[in-house]
């Protein structure tokens, strides 16, 4: 379910253009174009809501796609291109947030949650085991009675 609001925001903010990547943007070199497409999935359209420039209809996204391809044609590596956009728009432009002090909680949070939860389950299981006293072994009298009951049932 695409967010309606995101879609709307992009449609309303800009003159309704066509959809996402246009034929005239596509680079002649297929290898370069593939890199461009992969990169444009990682870069956010900065006027849209959570939408990569690869799929955005906004004019801004188109400008960014064209700019991205210009950088690639000029010989930039993928990292150069990312750095170029981060220098312009900040980390905000990356769909994949960089791992640094301010995102440690984000990136390592899931693993910490899993470990904490697992530790909690383990502890609860141990505690429960400790509170339950193992049943005492059957006395010989009980064992004999059990055997009798079992053989009775087999007989019926």
């Amino acid at each position, binding site marked *: *379910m695409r967010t309606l609001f995101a879609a709307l925001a992009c449609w309303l903010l800009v003159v309704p253009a066509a959809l996402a990547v246009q*034929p005239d943007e596509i680079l002649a070199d297929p290898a370069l174009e593939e890199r461009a497409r992969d990169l444009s999935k990682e870069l956010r359209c900065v006027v849209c809501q959570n939408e990569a420039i690869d*799929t955005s209809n906004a004019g801004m996204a188109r400008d960014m796609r064209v700019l991205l391809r210009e950088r690639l044609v000029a010989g930039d590596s993928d990292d150069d291109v990312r750095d170029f956009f981060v220098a312009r728009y900040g980390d905000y432009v990356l*769909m994949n947030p960089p791992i640094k002090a301010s995102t440690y909680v*984000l990136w390592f949070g*899931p693993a910490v949650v*899993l470990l904490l*939860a697992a530790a909690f389950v383990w502890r609860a299981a141990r505690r429960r085991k400790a509170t339950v006293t193992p049943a005492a072994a059957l006395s010989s009298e009980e064992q004999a009675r059990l055997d009798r009951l079992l053989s009775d049932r087999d007989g019926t």
Partner: protein
Amino acid sequence: MIVEIGHFALVLALVAACVQGSVPLVGAQRNRADWMAIGTPSALLQFIFLAVSFACLTYAYVVSDFSVVNVMANSHSQKPLLYKVTGVWGNHEGSMLLWVLILALFGALVALFGGNLPAGLKARVISVQGWIGIAFLAFTLFTSNPFERIFPPPLDGNDLNPLLQDPGLAFHPPMLYVGYVGFSMAFSFAVAALIEGRIDAAWARWVRPWTLVAWVFLTGGIALGSWWAYYELGWGGWWFWDPVENVSFMPWLLGTALLHSAIVVEKREALKIWTVLLAILTFSLSLLGTFIVRSGLLTSVHAFATDPERGVFILIILLITIGGSLALFAIRAPQMRSGGIFAPISREGGLVLNNLLLATATATVFLGTLYPLFVEALDGSRLTVGPPFFDATFVPIMLPLIAACAVGPLLAWKRADLAGALGRLKFAAGAGILVLLATLMFADDGPWLAIPAMGLAAWLFVGAASEWAERVKLFRAPFAETRRRAAHLPRSAYGMTIAHMGLAIVMAGIIGASAWKQEEILVMQNGESIVFAGYDVTFLEMRRIQGPNYVAERASIRVEQDGEQIAVLTPEKRFYPVQGMPTTEAAIHTTWLSDIYIALGDEGETNAGEAGWVVRLYYEPLVPWLWVGSLVMMIGGVVSLSDRRLRVGAPQPKPAKAPSGQAVPAE
């Protein structure tokens, strides 16, 4: 006049909710049967008032009464009748009214069918439903009143957003809301149990079907929304890890965990405290989902502050509901005792693992969705958390879950033999390896992870089937014996098998669609042909057509394979003059194994400089399995709901014990 009746009925519903929220509860605390008995009529009255209110608003939409602000802002006299009706909930105010209507419906259902519940529990549950009703009715009446009038009335309305004028999206909100609100039942039962300080198997037996109903609808709602995005937005995507999607996905994940942990409470009286907590959290996430979308909180913290009246109201409701129930939980939970001990390797152990992973997955989505807000509120810097984050964190949590999902149902309660269970999965393992090898041969590119993941999907599918085969002794006993066993297997067992198979189908769809999608964007002219994904695609012609409230340009595009015509697809580009908005209507041909998806763009120029039309072609392998699989999962839920135990529904403490002296096999 009719509009005023609706408005008045809404006020009366609030009054009924106030009675419902107080009298039965006080009665239950003081053990007064007559006070408790007030619950039933007040819950029914609240529902009747809301039904009247909703009918009145619908009437205003159908007759296009533009003196009502809400109708004026969201409807138009030329709109098709279907979208006039669905326009009622296509906006904030109307959707809140739908929300409280569904809430009151659930309350009324407890009142009507809760006769076999202990009187105190029933009264408390109805009261808690009443509190939620009070909060939402007050919010609707004081900040989002759909019955407000405007003078002088305009000649015509502003029309509904064209993107919403679509059958898929018309029914997406009601299904989603039945899902969200359905979890209020689990919440009310949990809070009532905390007030009483007692949970038993009968409690779980009541909570589970309600949770299942909510889960089935939420599954449908999410799938419908995803399907809509797929065919309406024009580039063949179906899931975006967008915050608005995530907030509906979180209650689904946690609700799925709740569904499984309630089984343990019902069968083994273990995990009680955890299940109560899950019920509270699941509904809390549903509330968050309802509000977060409407409040603008997700755009930015600042957007939230621009409409402080609603925003503050929302915050207060969330704080009281979530904070209050968690505080109650903190006070009461330590006094509750869980029974049922079990070894780590057991059915219970498997379900604990399920809960552990689903809860972690929920936490991951929660972090990814709300972290940008925390950061922005903290130091004003802005951050984007997009699909790459979720691919990197969510997928590794789900893969072990899928792997374990085939094993869990084969484990015995209390203490199980893991090696034995794995041994019984040899066909599943074989199928997994076979599919893995086949994928390795046929998939020429795409991420490597997709290949073992396809094997895992096959493992789950065949694993779920072998659990059933195991139980009916397929091929190991005479056929008559198998048939007898199959007939006697409870429907809930069938429900589980079907739902797990559905999950495997959905998983294959997800992998196929994300790993091997093909795309071609080009300018085509009349009569031009290209070869795409093994098909010959010819652009036949372009025609202008007139719809009921739009004009469209429609292309005819022929798709052939080996010289044989497969389909003529007619993608459209529509323009809705009232809202001045264009939309794309993609054309899709499905073979059930894959889709050919064509969307039309603007006029463009070919490389040679000649005029033509921008055409986007997508080859979407296995995408139909997403919708089929979701449907299969829903069917699994419905089959489980039809289980005799639930239909008869009597929350007897336990199935009648066998006469003493005879051992009851652990099941």
